[in-house]
């Protein structure tokens, strides 16, 4: 664990890998030190931002440095099933890149549960990890200016679902009617860090 202050606004905690980040996140989620406003998990870091009226970065650093995440298992924030119609514009390209048949891509995507490691890029955009390793594909050379909401996508070691229409460079393999982002819902994001996700093939 490495602690890096961000002036008087926050503390960036670097861990050795994503599992440790998730473990620390779930630990702090259950027992949040005083004055922490926001937690932003990422691939190898967790950013904690503070309310300066309540705490300061030094005090937070002392509280965090005392935490041992070694014995902590990755906690889950519940399970979500995502029904997918596998007719994405890049499905054949993903098959070509992975050397799999399109059917095998679908089976690999649905065959292993994924876990949301962190959110970013856009509200409710969850980066899911832990899926079938054969599905690692690069981003598209030419990002799309408009990716439809509900697009089910792959890039690098990650899977995700586009919450809203946005630009995007991920490989699109399918679409879901499930609303992963709804501002009327509490919380608005369905795919919060720690959520276990199972993709299920459904008919168009």
């Amino acid at each position, binding site marked *: 664990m490495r602690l*890096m*202050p*961000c002036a008087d*606004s926050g503390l960036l905690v670097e861990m050795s890998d994503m599992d440790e980040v998730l473990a620390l996140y779930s630990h702090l989620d259950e027992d949040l030190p005083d004055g922490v*406003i926001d937690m932003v998990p990422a691939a190898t870091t967790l*950013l904690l931002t503070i309310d300066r009226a309540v705490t300061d970065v030094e005090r937070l650093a002392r509280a965090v440095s005392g935490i041992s995440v070694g014995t902590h298992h990755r906690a889950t924030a519940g399970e979500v099933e995502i029904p997918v119609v596998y007719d994405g514009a890049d499905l054949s390209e993903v098959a070509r890149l992975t050397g799999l048949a399109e059917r095998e891509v679908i089976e690999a995507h649905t065959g292993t549960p994924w876990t949301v490691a962190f959110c*970013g890029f856009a*509200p*409710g955009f969850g980066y899911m990890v832990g899926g079938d390793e054969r599905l690692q594909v690069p981003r598209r050379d030419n990002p799309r200016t408009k990716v439809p909401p509900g697009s089910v996508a792959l890039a690098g070691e990650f899977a995700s679902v586009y919450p809203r229409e946005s630009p995007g460079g991920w490989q699109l393999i399918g679409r879901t009617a499930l609303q992963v982002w709804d501002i009327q819902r509490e919380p608005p994001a369905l795919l919060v860090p720690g959520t276990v996700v199972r993709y299920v093939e459904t008919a168009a």
Partner: protein
Amino acid sequence: MSAFRALEIIATGPQTTIQDLGREGLAGLGVGRSGAADLGSLRLANRLLGNSEGAAALEVTLGGLEVRSRGGAWVVVTGATTPATGDGRPVGHAAVTWLPDGSSLRLGAATAGLRSYVAVRGGIDVPPVLHSRSTDTMAGLGPPVPRPGDLLPVGPTPSAPPLVDVAPVAAPTTGEVLLRVVPGPRDDWFVPDVISTLVGGTYEVTAESNRVGMRLSGPVLERAREGELQSEGMVPGALQVPPTGQPTLFLADHPVTGGYPVVAVVVSDDIGLAAQAQPGQHIRFVLGGSRA
């Protein structure tokens, strides 16, 4: 019961949004804080009116706003200095002003600073989105951006009376803007003397500046390390440095995560000063001032 009171938008200038103190606790879902770019000026305006500090107000970029009162309203203008008039008569800066029913408040072009705050006693009472009335221009979240013809409802009159008529605040500088910075979190990605480079010269605010961040132009901040940083959480005030070596200073609508190393961070109390720097103005960074 009082009658319906509202501010009618006549003109917005280059950019007017509704802002409060922003959203907290949602960054982990990819939702940034947003809120007033210059929080101090918003808080001041609300205190002068007897509002809670977090009441929503109009954030006006470079002036040009015109609003008409429906039902009468107490208003205050803080932040950037603009020649403000109420029905043609001058309105003082940071001065509590009564705008009778049918009267209009007009802000000319900003002469010092970039963002003015037009607050109304009772606050702007549009429906909140995720517990805030802030418009996040990057995420596309929050109340719609006001347009001419819009009627913005004014909230219930607070019980606290306005206590002072005017706050003697200094106008934003039109010269060099001094900002305190603390090195890190990723200063180790740069050459050893990077912080002396950062504080040794001045940086010009470029035209590529908005609520997300200000792109700066000045001495190159040279990387010592190759390769890509894994995206990580960002704070407002972060000086993120892409491979060009020219930093971007993140403001209220900054992305929740970023993939370029942050060489230093502007202390919280100075972010509002940064948000008042106009394109073309120069920034000088100085070390410290923070008890990190």
